[in-house]
């Protein structure tokens, strides 16, 4: 091995790196990890597209009564459930980092405590956005059309990212608690009732009474309805019963509540080690 030179002089006072700088650096790492692992992207995209196509073609006959072509009803709901399903990936990635000692290294560095978790949330929301964009493209290819304005469509996409950001913190906490990827995967199964017992794939009113109760009181339903109403534009009233504005307030309140609980729990867990 080459002979060792003297350690480099540290420029200036002992550093504590800023929040923005360290968050960006760590976000970059998470993004690179995703982008440079083609299996991740391909697997996620293939799975998502496959399920979308299955629902769209298999159920369209039975779902004639929604008031618009089923693909127009399905697409916003399906894309919104990406919030939950891509979250499992985020929990697994977090659990892997804990297990591999990567989190230990980050915690031993002179960076603000919140930068690591914030970076994770930002990166995973970006990945969610990417997945959603891919699904939207596929949906468009098989007949999905916006009934409202493009601006409304973009607002829908943006809101999905906002809701997704809130949920990421729940998955970050799950990942920290799980400790390894298998446990995180198993804990991730909890998303299924939230994804299916919601307005994602079918109108809630068509469900049995006891399932309706759950669907009507869980956060994902108003969020999906907001997004759906925005994409339906003038048809919103007829299909979902109300314009987007009606669902927006409860969705944002849910998102705020989720953040208010999940963020402190995640930070506390991260600090404890």
């Amino acid at each position, binding site marked *: 091995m080459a002979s*060792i030179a003297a350690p*480099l002089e*540290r420029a200036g006072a002992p550093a504590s790196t800023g929040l923005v700088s360290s968050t960006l650096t760590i976000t970059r790492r998470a993004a690179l990890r995703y982008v*440079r*692992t083609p299996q991740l992207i391909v697997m996620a995209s293939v799975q998502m597209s496959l399920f979308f196509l299955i629902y769209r073609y298999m159920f369209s006959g039975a779902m004639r009564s929604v008031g618009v072509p089923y693909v127009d009803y399905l697409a916003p709901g399906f894309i919104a459930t990406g919030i939950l399903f891509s979250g499992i990936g985020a929990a697994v990635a977090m659990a892997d980092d804990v297990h591999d000692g990567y989190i230990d290294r980050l915690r*031993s560095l002179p960076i603000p405590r919140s930068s690591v978790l914030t970076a994770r949330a930002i990166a995973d929301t970006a990945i969610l956005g990417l997945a959603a964009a891919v699904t939207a493209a596929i949906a468009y290819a098989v007949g999905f059309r916006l009934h409202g304005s493009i601006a409304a469509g973009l607002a829908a996409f943006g809101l999905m990212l906002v809701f997704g950001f809130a949920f990421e913190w729940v998955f970050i906490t799950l990942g920290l608690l799980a400790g390894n990827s298998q446990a995180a995967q198993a804990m991730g199964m909890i998303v299924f009732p939230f994804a299916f017992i919601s307005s994602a794939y079918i109108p809630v009113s068509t469900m049995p009474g006891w399932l309706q109760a759950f669907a009507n009181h869980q956060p994902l339903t108003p969020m999906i309805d907001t997004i759906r109403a925005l994409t339906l534009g003038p048809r919103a009233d007829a299909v979902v019963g109300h314009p987007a504005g009606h669902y927006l307030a409860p969705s944002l309140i849910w998102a705020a509540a989720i953040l208010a609980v999940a963020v402190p729990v995640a930070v506390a867990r991260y600090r404890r080690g």
Partner: protein
Amino acid sequence: MKVTIEAQGLEKRFGKTAALAGLDLLAESGQVTAVLGPNGAGKTTFVRAVATLLRLDGGTLRVAGHDVQTDASSVRSLIGLAGQFAAVEGAMSGRENLEMVARLYGQNRRTAKASAASVLEQLGLTEPADRLVRTYSGGMKRRLDLGASLVGAPRLLLLDEPTTGLDPRSRIELWDAIRALVEAGTDVLLTTQYLDEADQLAGRIAIIDHGRTIAAGTPVDLKRTVGGDVVEVHARRQDQLAAVAEALARLDEGTPQIDEATRRVTVGVARRDGLLTAMHSLQSAEVEIDDIALRQPTLDEVFLALTGHRADTEDRAAQKHAA
């Protein structure tokens, strides 16, 4: 003498288990301080406490004068941590990994590039530096992990069992790198299960067990406790073990220990021609043997000498490794 680590009465409990039960340690600057102990002794817990990764339940711990509980951020800017796992990102290149950590230490882009390049050269990783780390061998990943702990030019390097799972050659290369670092002015705290590793690298060794320091001193001091080196004889037949032990007892050195299961007898010898005299003794007793060797004492044997009981059955692996 400057003090790098000052630990007094450290306590840490996980549920009902006391990982640290009143641990004291003093690490001086300018050398490698080794913390030696079997699995479960508290080595990793201690390193994590120094790295500000956990909250202590009791005691005081200072790194270069800064308290880890009240002044953690100062401690973090002074230390570099390399654990048992290679905590590096596989989807980035070696260089990208090091530049990233350098940036997180507060270095600007240019300084980070320079630090990374320097460390890569120090560790012989310049050639594969721009390949993705997932293509690296296990030894290379470990070296890169060490590099990540160095790139911030730390005052104190924390190495938690750094050679676990490495092949003999990588192990020696890592030892060389550590020695060179100390020569260049970095203080090192090293934890290990292997007495030979502590012996090779450390200026001072602290032996811990069940969360407490049971002995501390220079390698020479500690080996003297055992009585120097160990002569190990592999008897040809089970019924000859007693005769072997008798022949070795005649050397007037340590008390021969018989291991029936492996058909071996060991005895500590302080004299330099211990192996030769052992062979003479066995020859004059006309005892036939399969094998005889002179080796370093194992952690197990040091424990036996210090505490009267063996360290851990898992130390069998360490014994084979040291032999």
